[in-house]
């Protein structure tokens, strides 16, 4: 006997002890698919026959089965299950996980069971046990279907068992092997003319033909072999329902289309089956139109409609099509609940002022990996939300008939020739959201969920694999993001930290270019670009060609043509007028440099340094840097004068005086060091921006271009507006050549004049060396500059000797992880991934930044 079961189901083996369930299971199923009550009993009580352990054993069995079903794995229950009350929870379990349940009954002769038990010394119970079980089984046989088993197979003899074989059938919804390409078509509602035009526009060739029994049909083909997928609601309301059905039936029969059921089909089927339904919402038109068709056609149509599946899972599971959408847990499953969701969506049980059900917005919470395309509720403009899109653009209501090309994800639509039906509820921007007036962008803003960010997280990056964020770091980041950060839609990128070079052994310096070159050399890099390091604040600038571009791409409506934020995602400018002027200058600079046109974009993301330092670091400067300076000067000046006085009295003060004088001198140098980077800002003229990476623009993350390209862009911006854009001096250094010496003297010259130092980057933006991913940048700071890092007196030899002991490995690892996360976020943004997927990267960078690392590095 062939036992055909769905590929995903709960199989319940039913039979008295000794009926051969375990043997059957081991022959037809993988050992891991079988959950046996005896095994569970042994696990909890060290004894497979300990009946007192039964409740615990079944709790374990249930847990294992539930976990497997949740994960979508076929599961076999090996327990006697001869009593209805034993089977009831199993059927419930399957239903709870939207899986079908299958009963396989081993109805063996009682004598055989008894004989088998005799051979097993551990089963010492008397014959009455088997007898009772057999009797219970007999009583159960006819009621199994009623109990909820979708398929029941009964094997009545050892011979039948011997001949039985199990065949796993693909689920009806499973079209994973169909890889397209597809054209998914929204709610047609009898709009035949529009459908025909749309199909032609999509490249299909439509011909009428007579089929073998002489009824007129259609032949529809696509030169590239594309297939159409209809989201349901072919019928009702519109003018040519029968013709639409005819077309779609022809296409599905020919294998050039798939069609899922819509709620209108479901209701029509009930009507055609003679059940009592309310003739409303356009059903009357359909019935009238079908009346005009031949009885044969009516019959065929009824069969076609009745056979429609709730949803399809296509293209290796990457695409799901369901009439009203489908949440991730239900995809690929079969149950009444799943079917209802597919047909009607998730409703809250309430109705709105138009008497229509208020829908819960399942798409807001959707976090599944598959793209879900659906219809059912007309929208003015289809909008992506968390990998879902509603393409019902209300053709029958005078809107458009829309198709989504997959995998291209392009929308193609045809306007309705007329209004065929007045909508009960006005077609809103997006009626799915309960806030009817918000645009698609605003809605996306509000869909981040706490579950997207808190707890231990693992972010998969293409550059560096899985990156783990610890729970406590995520908690710290949550506070910072919630209290201080900009709207997450702006935060497509947060910059990585930059590691310093190894500590130099040269006298009087902690950092020296020699170490930078050595590092890159040791990692197999042959060429680096050394860039002057500007001492300001790291700033990310997002700017669009106009406010409309920002709304379109970032979903942020309003006047803003961009924003500028710090490395922790805070808005840079408190003064919004100054910010607007600043962004306008940048926008103009980009235009004058010809970059909008050249990059074919209307937005860019720049990584840059913004000066002066005092603009953002005001509090830090006042509370720490200047304060320490004045305290040191005052204190040491007084000490110097008292020591001098003491010495003048003829007392030997040893080295104390000379030492205080030296310290006083260092203190002065320290104050000079920070003062260089400070100037008051009264207008935009006092602000300078030094961009060093043009990170992304429409369709592109510019990591494939080397740093000379990025420096070239920066140079062009400088030329376009030298007042705002500061040029970044840079030198290309071929390692192991004289270039190193030249670059070193350049560094010395820069830093002796008070410059912060240099940042060296491998020529390639993303460089893989002999030891994997190479540090994307490494800083080498000047001796004077480091006074504001290590304190005024750090150059005193006894201090310096100790400061040389510093551990940069954590910082290095952090820099690489943050680099990978930053680029991942940009890539996801450019690829138009859902907001939560972009946000998780920026959030992870912030979380990593809360890891304890020596802040002086």
């Amino acid at each position, binding site marked *: 006997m062939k036992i055909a079961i769905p590929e995903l189901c709960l199989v319940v083996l039913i039979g008295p002890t000794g009926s051969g369930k375990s043997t059957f299971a081991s022959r037809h199923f993988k050992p891991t698919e079988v959950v046996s009550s005896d095994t569970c009993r042994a696990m909890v009580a060290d004894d497979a026959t300990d009946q007192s352990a039964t409740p615990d054993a079944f709790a374990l069995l249930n847990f294992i089965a539930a976990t497997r079903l949740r994960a979508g794995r076929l599961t076999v229950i090996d327990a006697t299950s001869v009593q209805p009350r034993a089977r009831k929870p199993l059927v419930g379990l399957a239903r709870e996980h939207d899986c079908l349940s299958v009963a396989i009954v081993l109805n063996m002769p009682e004598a055989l069971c008894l004989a088998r038990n005799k051979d097993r010394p551990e089963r010492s119970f008397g014959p009455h046990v088997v007898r009772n079980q057999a009797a219970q089984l007999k009583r159960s046989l006819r009621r199994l279907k009623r109990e909820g088993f979708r398929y029941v197979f009964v094997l009545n003899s050892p011979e039948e068992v011997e001949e039985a074989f199990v065949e796993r059938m693909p689920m009806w919804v499973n079209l994973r092997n169909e890889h397209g390409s597809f054209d998914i078509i929204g709610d047609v509602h009898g709009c035949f003319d529009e459908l025909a035009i749309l199909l032609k526009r999509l490249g299909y060739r439509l011909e009428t033909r007579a089929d073998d029994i002489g009824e007129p049909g259609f032949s529809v083909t696509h030169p590239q072999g594309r297939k159409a997928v209809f989201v349901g609601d072919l019928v009702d309301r519109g003018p040519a329902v029968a013709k639409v059905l005819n077309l779609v039936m022809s296409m599905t029969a020919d294998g050039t289309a798939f069609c899922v059921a819509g709620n209108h089909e479901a209701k029509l089927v009930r009507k055609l089956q003679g059940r009592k339904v309310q003739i409303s919402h356009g059903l009357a038109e359909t019935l009238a139109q079908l009346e005009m068709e031949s009885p044969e056609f009516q019959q065929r149509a009824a069969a076609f409609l009745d056979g429609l599946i709730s949803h399809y899972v296509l293209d290796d599971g990457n695409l799901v099509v369901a009439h009203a959408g489908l949440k991730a847990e239900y995809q690929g499953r079969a149950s009444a609940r799943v079917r209802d969701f597919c047909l009607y969506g998730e409703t809250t049980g309430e109705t709105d002022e138009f008497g229509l059900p208020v829908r819960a917005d399942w798409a807001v919470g959707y976090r599944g990996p598959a793209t879900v395309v659906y219809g059912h509720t007309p929208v003015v403009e289809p909008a992506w939300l968390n990998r879902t899109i509603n393409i019902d653009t209300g053709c029958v209501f005078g809107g458009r008939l829309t198709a989504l090309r997959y995998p291209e994800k392009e929308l193609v639509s045809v306007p309705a020739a007329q209004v065929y039906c007045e909508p009960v509820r006005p077609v809103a921007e997006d009626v799915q959201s*309960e*806030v009817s007036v918000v645009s698609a962008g*605003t809605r996306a*803003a*509000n869909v*981040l*969920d*706490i*579950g*997207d960010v*808190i707890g231990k997280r693992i972010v998969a990056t293409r550059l560096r694999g899985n990156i783990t964020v610890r729970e*406590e*770091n995520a*908690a*710290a980041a949550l*506070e910072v*993001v*919630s*209290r201080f950060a*900009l*709207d997450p839609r702006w935060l497509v990128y947060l910059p990585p930290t930059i590691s310093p070079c190894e500590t130099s052994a040269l006298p009087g310096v902690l950092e020296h270019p020699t170490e930078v070159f050595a590092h890159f050399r040791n990692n197999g890099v042959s060429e680096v670009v050394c860039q002057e390091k500007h001492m300001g*604040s790291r700033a990310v600038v997002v700017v669009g060609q106009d406010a409309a571009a920002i709304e379109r791409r970032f979903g942020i409506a309003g006047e803003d043509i961009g924003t500028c934020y710090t490395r*922790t995602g805070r808005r840079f400018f408190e003064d919004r007028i100054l910010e607007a002027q600043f962004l306008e200058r940048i926008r103009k600079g980009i235009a004058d440099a010809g970059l909008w046109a050249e990059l074919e974009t209307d937005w860019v993301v720049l990584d840059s340094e913004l000066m002066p330092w005092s603009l*953002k*670091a005001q*509090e*830090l*400067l006042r509370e720490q840097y*200047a*304060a*320490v300076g*004045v*305290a*040191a000067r*005052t*204190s*040491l000046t007084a*000490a110097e004068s*008292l*020591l001098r*006085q*003491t010495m003048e*009295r003829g*007392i*030997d*003060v*040893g080295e*104390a005086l000379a030492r205080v004088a030296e310290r006083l001198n260092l203190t002065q140098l320290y104050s000079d060091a920070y*003062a260089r980077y*400070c100037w008051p800002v009264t207008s935009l003229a006092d602000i300078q921006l030094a961009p060093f990476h043009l990170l992304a623009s429409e369709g592109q993350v510019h990591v494939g271009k080397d740093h000379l390209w990025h420096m070239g862009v920066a140079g062009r911006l400088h030329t376009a507006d030298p007042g705002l854009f500061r040029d970044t001096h840079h030198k290309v250094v071929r390692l192991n050549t004289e270039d190193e010496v030249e670059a070193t003297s350049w560094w010395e010259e820069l830093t002796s004049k008070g410059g912060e130092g240099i940042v060296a980057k491998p020529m390639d933006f993303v460089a893989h060396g002999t030891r994997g991913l190479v540090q994307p940048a490494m800083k080498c700071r000047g001796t004077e500059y480091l006074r504001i*890092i*290590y*304190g005024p*007196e750090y150059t005193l030899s006894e*201090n310096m000797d100790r400061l040389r002991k510093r551990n940069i490995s*954590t910082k290095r690892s952090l820099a690489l992880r943050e680099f990978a996360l930053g680029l991942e976020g940009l890539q996801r943004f450019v690829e138009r991934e859902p907001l939560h997927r972009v946000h998780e990267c920026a959030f992870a960078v912030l979380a990593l930044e809360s890891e*304890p690392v*020596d*802040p*002086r590095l």
Partner: protein
Amino acid sequence: MLLTISTTHRPATDLGFLVHKNPARFQSFKLPFGRADVFYPEAESHRCTVALLLNIDPVGLVRLKPGAPKGGGWLEQYVNDRPYVASSHLSVAIAKVFGSALAGNSRDRPDLAEQAIPLEARIPVVPSREGADLIGNLFEPLGYAVGIEGRPLDERFPEWGPSPYFSVRLAATTRLRDLLVHLYVLLPVLDDHKHYWVGDDEVAKLLRFGEGWLDGHPLRDLISRRYLKHQRGLVDQALVQLLDAGPTDPGTAATRHEQAEKQLETPLRLSEQRIQAVLDALRSLGAVKVLDLGCGEGRLIHALLGESSVRSITGIDVSLRALATARRRLRLNDLPPRQQQRVNLLHGSLVYGDSRLSGHDAAIAMEVIEHIDAPRLDAFEEAVFGSAQPKAVLVTTPNAEHNAVFDRLPAGAFRHGDHRFEWTREQFRDWSGRVANRRRYDVRFQDIGPVHPDHGAPTQMGIFTQ
């Protein structure tokens, strides 16, 4: 860091006997954090001055701190005023180098040690974040003539304003031991900001050193509180590192802001009135399951626990530290199980959707929205009204018009440093009306606190109901 003590008692050089240090020698003493030099810039019979110069090791301070958190104890920066200012380190040096004098002992001049003599102490850098007044208020009640000179942060940047440091001169006719004891206790009190080293024995020490003067001091409470100040947890450190401001401890800043706001509103006992108004509203709504959005340190939860009709209280806050404080203050772990079950504290954010917040009768956002950047109120609205959808929402927020009534608040300033906005009655009604309309709630408004005829009540409350 430097301290000088001078006397004009004759012979002034007897000062050497009182501090047990020879005026003719330059002496050095090793300390856990560096070295102390003692020397006499002047030693005449009419006037003698002893100087105590501390050479604090700035690197050791950061690196050698025992039990410093991994990552180098970054709260202590190398760029640090510790080596230069009068702080707890100076107290330790006084005890170590002038120990006998501090105890009132003198081997060679025991009577002089017990005698009030003209003394003058000079400290070139005394930190006082509160300004010069506190220095006077601390020392003047003890009989000192106090001279104070302030300094700008940086002459090159006059716009940065004054520094928190003062050169201080204290003069009095008193026993040397009294002067030393006062310095020993009060310098760390002034330095409040960075005074970390408090241990268990400090209470006993304070009682011992404060004997005879602390009890009657008008600032007794402040002195005790600051002298015994405790360190903060590690979570804060992670947080500080994230903030752009760098080393400024947000906790300290927040506490400062809290206090400023409280002081402003204290005469009204406004916070109690707010809680009362919220409780009254909840009672009339018959709320059983309530949500305290931005519960902070749990003041409202404490009040809610007293409401028998409220059976379940969920407090949510974005600050882990605030939640930990709430847990401690509410003594959650000590409550009987049934009470414990009534309260649930959650770490979360009001700008993310959160399914844990669904299914409540009422949500209270008491003095919360003004801490959210105005452009992010949309996300708050979505999280609370769109996603959590409690049957009722109570929102309280300051009425900006009423600020005119607070004479201590400069015009245009906010009541709290972290307020992102303060709304007039019209602005609040406008926002509330739009939210209610969009989200299908009804809203009515209520004043909290004494109503001023022109400026209205200090606090306004919106009661949203489904």
